[in-house]
């Protein structure tokens, strides 16, 4: 009975969503204020029913109700309770329900926080969000209900959650990503509402900007955690695979990054208007496209979700309606848009325009690399495979001009700059960046490849440029500290975001260049040496967890005969699926990670072990966290709150 209530609650939510889609849009079209006023309560109402439905799914999972197919396939009685909760989004049906939870919550949030918006705009934004909600709810109810029953023959024990997903990183990775995807649907709704209203002025950009920033922050954090999870959980120290599913999250991120820069130009200078709208549409479209790629099984991926052409067909149709419809609307309205501002070549406008170009090119590279093999095949040209080397090569080329630009971008002013004094400053910065890089790398490494040196220097260059700009802008009449305070949270967000990128570039470069690994077979007491660390194998212990058993290799790490850490590299056998999992032992540090994976048992008490020394690998995720913080900081900026009120008066 209880699962059926969950299903029914979703049906009600869809009913309300349908009204949320029709009433305000019709009201805005006919100028009927009463219809428009219905929107906020409808938005909150559908959200409550979706939340209730999700609570029921959690409840049936916690109570081990294996008559529900989803629970029987993704949970088991021995699963710890927290993994039972997360198992509600470990499979396709549950993941889509989680998406719905996010979608309806964002919709409700927009409804509650948009009371300073003019009704026509507010109604249209909520109407568009309502339409998206209907699309996802219909999909859940029709093709992927998590409440389907296995009656009358149901199992007494569930199939357990995939061991790969039994990890803290996996608990938060999907919700964060979905927060980002769905958050971008708000930017999308704002763009469509602006197109429908026909007023593409900078007020639209002003309102859309904080929402976009938060969505982008979540997306960044989601991708960062996903990469960390892969590193910690997959057992061979990789952190990015250019897998179609990863690409599906990277593409919206790249476009959203372009979008938030472009929004700044539109808001402050009133130019790039139609471009910004197009980016907002594209960012969300790529989220939908990503979902389609992941869920339809159109491309083989290690993430391999269930492949079902019916589901794929539904998502593709939805994609066609949403994206096709909005691009058609865009095509019809865009010719009415005119730019107001004027600017010269050496200006912040052009710098940001170049930033957009680079990010869009990067997106196209990822898109092509992901879809080209399929298009090639469909054209009857035979098959090709595009792998990691293609992406690595393209990105390592693209990052050079991008990073060079990033280093000088903050110094550029709107409209026009005097180039000669700036060029002089950049020359000094360049020399300094090269010198610092040399000081950093040359004493520490015997051999520095030109490519390694250049990439690292780029990271230093970005950091220098950003820091120099602070010193340029901060001085105030009274004191330097007060000057710093006056810069505002948005400015600090920019600083954080750019330095985060520098961290990521440095980390990717140095980890790729200087990671070393050794496969060794060791008996208890044996010592292996890797770089300045020695690893003493102290034997293997039996371990027993709630739903697995296995062995833990105990390794003592020493440096110059001094104790550093004792590591337990586990190999687990999960009871139900009989699946082996390598649980790597990681000693994390600011400058290096020591990473240890236990291999097979060999003869006479010897075990095979894999030892990795990964310098600066942690900077990657540190960078990711800094970048996402930038997204969250902008929302806290007082300027935005005051602006909102001013917008309401106007």
């Amino acid at each position, binding site marked *: 009975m209880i699962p059926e209530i969950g299903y029914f609650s979703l049906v009600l939510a869809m009913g309300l969503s349908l009204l949320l889609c029709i009433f305000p849009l019709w009201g805005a079209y006919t100028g009927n204020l009463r219809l428009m006023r219905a929107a906020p309560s409808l938005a909150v109402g559908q959200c409550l029913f979706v939340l209730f439905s999700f609570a029921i799914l959690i409840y049936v999972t916690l109570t081990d109700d294996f008559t529900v197919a989803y629970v029987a396939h993704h949970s088991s009685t021995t699963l710890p309770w927290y993994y039972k909760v997360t198992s509600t989004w470990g499979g396709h049906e549950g993941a889509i329900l989680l998406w719905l939870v996010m979608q309806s919550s964002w919709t409700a949030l927009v409804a509650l926080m948009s009371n300073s918006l003019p009704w026509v705009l507010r109604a249209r934004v909520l109407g568009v969000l309502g339409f998206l909600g209907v699309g996802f709810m219909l999909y859940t109810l029709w093709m992927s209900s998590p409440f389907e029953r296995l009656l009358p023959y149901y199992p007494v024990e569930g199939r357990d959650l995939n061991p790969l997903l039994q990890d803290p990183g996996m608990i938060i990775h999907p919700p964060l990503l979905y927060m980002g995807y769905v958050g971008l649907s708000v930017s999308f709704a704002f763009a469509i509402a602006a197109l429908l209203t026909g007023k593409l002025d900078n007020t639209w950009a002003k309102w859309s900007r904080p929402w976009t920033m938060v969505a982008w922050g979540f997306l960044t954090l989601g991708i960062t955690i996903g990469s960390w999870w892969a590193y910690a959980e997959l057992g*061979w120290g990789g952190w990015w695979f250019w897998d179609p599913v990863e690409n599906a999250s990277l593409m919206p991120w790249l476009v959203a990054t372009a979008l938030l820069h472009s929004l700044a130009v539109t808001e402050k200078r009133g130019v790039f208007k*139609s471009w910004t709208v*197009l980016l907002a*549409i*594209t960012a969300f*479209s790529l989220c939908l496209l990503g979902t*389609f790629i992941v869920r*339809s*099984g*159109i*491309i*083989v991926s290690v993430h391999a979700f269930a492949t079902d*052409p019916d589901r*794929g*067909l539904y998502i*593709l149709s939805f*994609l*066609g309606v949403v*994206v*096709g419809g909005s*691009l*058609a609307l*865009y*095509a*019809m*309205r*865009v*010719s009415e848009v005119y730019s107001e501002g004027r600017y010269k070549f050496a200006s912040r406008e052009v710098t940001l325009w170049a930033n957009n170009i680079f990010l869009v090119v990067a997106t196209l590279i990822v898109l092509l690399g992901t*879809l080209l*093999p*399929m*298009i090639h*095949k*469909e054209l009857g040209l*035979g*098959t*090709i*495979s595009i*792998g990691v*080397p293609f992406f690595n090569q393209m990105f*390592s080329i693209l990052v050079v001009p991008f990073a060079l630009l990033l280093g000088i971008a903050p110094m550029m002013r709107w409209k026009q700059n005097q180039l000669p004094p700036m060029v002089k400053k950049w020359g000094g910065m360049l020399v300094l960046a090269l010198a610092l890089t040399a000081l950093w790398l040359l004493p520490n490494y015997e*051999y*520095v*490849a030109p*490519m*390694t040196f250049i990439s690292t220097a780029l990271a230093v260059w970005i950091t220098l440029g950003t820091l120099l700009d602070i010193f340029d802008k901060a001085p105030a009449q009274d004191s330097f500290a007060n000057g710093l305070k006056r810069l505002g949270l948005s400015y600090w967000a920019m600083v954080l975001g750019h330095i985060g990128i520098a961290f990521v570039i440095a980390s990717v*470069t140095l980890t*790729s*260049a200087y*990671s070393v*690994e050794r*496969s060794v*077979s060791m008996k208890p007491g044996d010592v292996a040496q890797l770089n300045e660390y020695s690893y003493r194998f102290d034997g293997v212990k039996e371990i027993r967890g709630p739903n697995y058993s296995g062995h833990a290799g105990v390794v003592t790490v020493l440096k110059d005969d001094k104790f550093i850490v004792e590591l337990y590299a586990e190999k687990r056998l999960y009871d139900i699926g009989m699946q082996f999992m390598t649980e790597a032992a990681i000693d994390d540090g600011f400058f290096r990670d020591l990473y240890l994976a236990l291999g097979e048992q*060999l003869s006479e008490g010897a075990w095979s072990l894999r030892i990795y020394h990964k310098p600066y690998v942690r900077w990657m995720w540190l960078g990711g966290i800094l970048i996402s913080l930038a997204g969250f900081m902008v929302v806290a900026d007082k300027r935005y709150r005051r602006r909102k009120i001013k917008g309401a008066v106007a």
Partner: protein
Amino acid sequence: MNKKLLGFIPFLIFIFLCVFLYQGLFGNPRELQTGRIGQTMPSFVLPDLMDESKQWRDTDLKGDVYLLNVWGTWCPTCIAELGYLTELREHGVRIIGLYYEQAYDPDFGDQFDINALRNEVQNMLDRAGNPYQFNILDLDRTLALDLGVSGAPETFLVDANGTILLHHTGDINPRVWRAKFAPVMQELSE
């Protein structure tokens, strides 16, 4: 160009993309890997993994049916299939290894220690079984690229004239062998 027409470009690109996505929905994505089937083995000159002075050419391989197995000691699945491949060798299947070194990237100044690799390979083969007649070292991954290899393990079935008959991604186990390779081998021996 007319601004009005320009605005339709994103829409048209999207429609174009949708057509392919729709078609792709009903295709089998795993067929993507079969691009080399029916073509002849690309030409190459590469050293032997264990003995640098020995060079292998594509022409050296001709004359008999063989399996080209792309593998590396870094790849757990490759190690897992060594046992079964060794069994196949004992039944008279000729297997040639194409050693795929994953970690090495000269652009980042990686050093390459061939002797360490040889030791590791030798240890592994001593332990897990040695199915190979010999191993080709494809350090720059040029042959792997020509063959459309996307990872390891992958195995190609090549006939006596050097024509590629099968391309399998993933491990070879008794089930795969019976379903995919055995019928073709049967046909060849008739």
